[in-house]
């Protein structure tokens, strides 16, 4: 049973204190004989102030689940409530604005704009929000400085190492102070040392009261940074275990 390890009371738990609530989410791709079911009735709660890791083998539905939580993918069935907002009730435009204002992304392949400097890349969410370019780049430079990148502000992504690029991506994800940070395999392209540094930075800066972090990973070296670890298998959450940082909120 997919939700076997989730307490029965979870379904009835009040929304207060919960950043992300996923209920009965199923996601199908394709139709007819070619249909693939990526998620099969997933239930999940992520409280504020928590770093949740989604782990599991390739193709188990981690990325699909995180895409749905981030509002970039529609579930076939089920409800998703993020920061108190029911995603299904939002128009596309409202969802776009919601993401812009509330969600930060760290992608596996960084997705930095190659023509922009590190500071400019990190400033992109602020530019999307309509900030003046100079102010946005200054704000981004501050965040980059906190991530130890003060001396690489004017570097292009091609001039940065993988670890440095990932720090720029983290700065970009945090610069607009989102309440939900979604990280997709943030350490998969990094060596052990850079992976550890990256996770430390994410924990240090993003794990705050009033914020939540979801990290998709199958890098077992970084499990120790989680508050809880949800392991997925075949489109279901198999088990949720407390990580080393877990503080019981019940």
């Amino acid at each position: 049973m997919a939700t076997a390890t989730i307490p029965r009371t979870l379904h009835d738990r009040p929304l207060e204190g919960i950043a992300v609530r996923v209920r009965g989410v199923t996601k199908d791709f394709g139709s007819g004989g070619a249909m693939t079911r990526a998620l099969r009735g997933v239930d999940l709660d992520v409280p504020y102030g928590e770093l949740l890791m989604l782990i599991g083998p390739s193709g188990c539905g981690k990325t699909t689940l995180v895409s749905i939580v981030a509002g970039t993918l529609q579930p076939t069935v089920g409800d998703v409530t993020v920061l108190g907002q029911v995603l299904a009730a939002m128009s596309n435009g409202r969802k776009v604005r919601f993401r812009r204002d509330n969600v930060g992304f760290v992608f596996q392949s960084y997705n930095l704009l190659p023509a922009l400097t590190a500071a400019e890349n990190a400033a992109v969410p602020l530019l999307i929000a309509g900030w003046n370019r100079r102010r946005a780049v200054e704000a981004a430079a501050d965040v980059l400085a906190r991530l130890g990148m003060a001396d690489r502000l004017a570097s292009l992504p091609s001039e940065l190492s993988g670890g440095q690029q990932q720090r720029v991506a983290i700065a970009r994800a945090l610069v607009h102070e989102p309440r939900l940070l979604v990280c997709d395999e943030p350490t998969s392209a990094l060596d052990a040392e850079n992976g550890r540094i990256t996770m430390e930075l994410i924990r240090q800066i993003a794990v705050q009261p009033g914020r939540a972090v979801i990290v998709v990973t199958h890098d077992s070296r970084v499990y120790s940074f989680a508050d809880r670890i949800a392991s997925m298998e075949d489109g279901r959450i198999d088990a949720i275990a407390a990580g080393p940082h877990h503080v019981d909120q019940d």
Partner: protein
Amino acid sequence: MLWIAWKMLVGNRVKYLGIVFGVVFAAVLIAQQASIFCGLMSLTVSQIRDVEGPGIWVMDRHVQFVDDIKPLSDNELFRVKGVPGVEWAVRFYKGIGRARLQEGAYEQMIILGLDDATLVGAPAGVFLGSIADLRKPDAVIMDDAGYKRAWPGESYKLGRTFEMNDRRAVLVGITKASRTFQSFPIIYTRYSQAVLFAPPERKVLSFVLADAQPDVPSEEVCRRIEQRTGLQALTREQFLWKTIAYYLRKTGIPLNFGITVLLGFLVGTAIAGQTFYLFTVENIRQFGALKAMGTSNWTILGMVLAQAMQVGIVGYGLGVGLAAVFGWVVKGASRLSFFMPWQVLVITAVAVVVIVLVASLLSIRKVLIVDPAIVFRG
């Protein structure tokens, strides 16, 4: 966000130059060919433009363009003069004769015969000799391009003689004149002299040049002349456009140039469209990331259109500039007709706008349908 669009565009130098090249190619070809076409068309009416003074041209009712001479009887001059509203009217001869130069060579020449008394229609650009010298016996004034053609490599020398229809012609002046469609030398002489230079015909009057009284519109006088004489009377502008319309309608010139312009348009669109599409495909993950981070489809649309317009403006500027430089260089170094009126710039601009819009259509579709979740796929 437009700034990001611009940085994305110019960040990839090779693609950027490829797209710009496509637009430049099209703009150069369109502007250059259209300008050569306009140059050719202006040649067809150069003699109407060069005859200053008369506002009305009267001719046989079947004349279709300025070189389509259907001689009139000399009496027609007096009939035109008798039409109310005509301020004055004079004879004008236009024909082609064969000149035998002193060296024994023959040269076809355009003969323009001006009214003996008034010399109406005399060239305005005489820079050697004077118009008054046309009153001397056998006097002719020749255009400078014609002089260089008749006596290549020789310096200007007044007093030179040659034969026209076994009659002596004496060069008394050199003038600037617009080149004609046939590119023959032009000689200006008195009407009475011109008819002697030309092969004999029963009727010799080519046109009656007239002008309207100040208080009567030229169009009204034209109408009266046609009504009373049965001849065709046109204002200078009307005759000019009638001549151009004849060449547009009856010759393959517009078609030939049109094909080249169309080819430039299509090839430019293909190059720019393909490169722009590849540029978009290459950046599709970046566009996906921007969408995931909360950039609306409208903003993305604006970004792609801004990129397209930026390419269009640069391509247009370079293309039209290169075409103008080409015209300037070639016009000075050869006899190529090149005339770039503002309409050519507008037509080229419209073509470039269409090219960049067509080029960006596929890209727009691509970025609008891209799923922001693409960024979560490895």
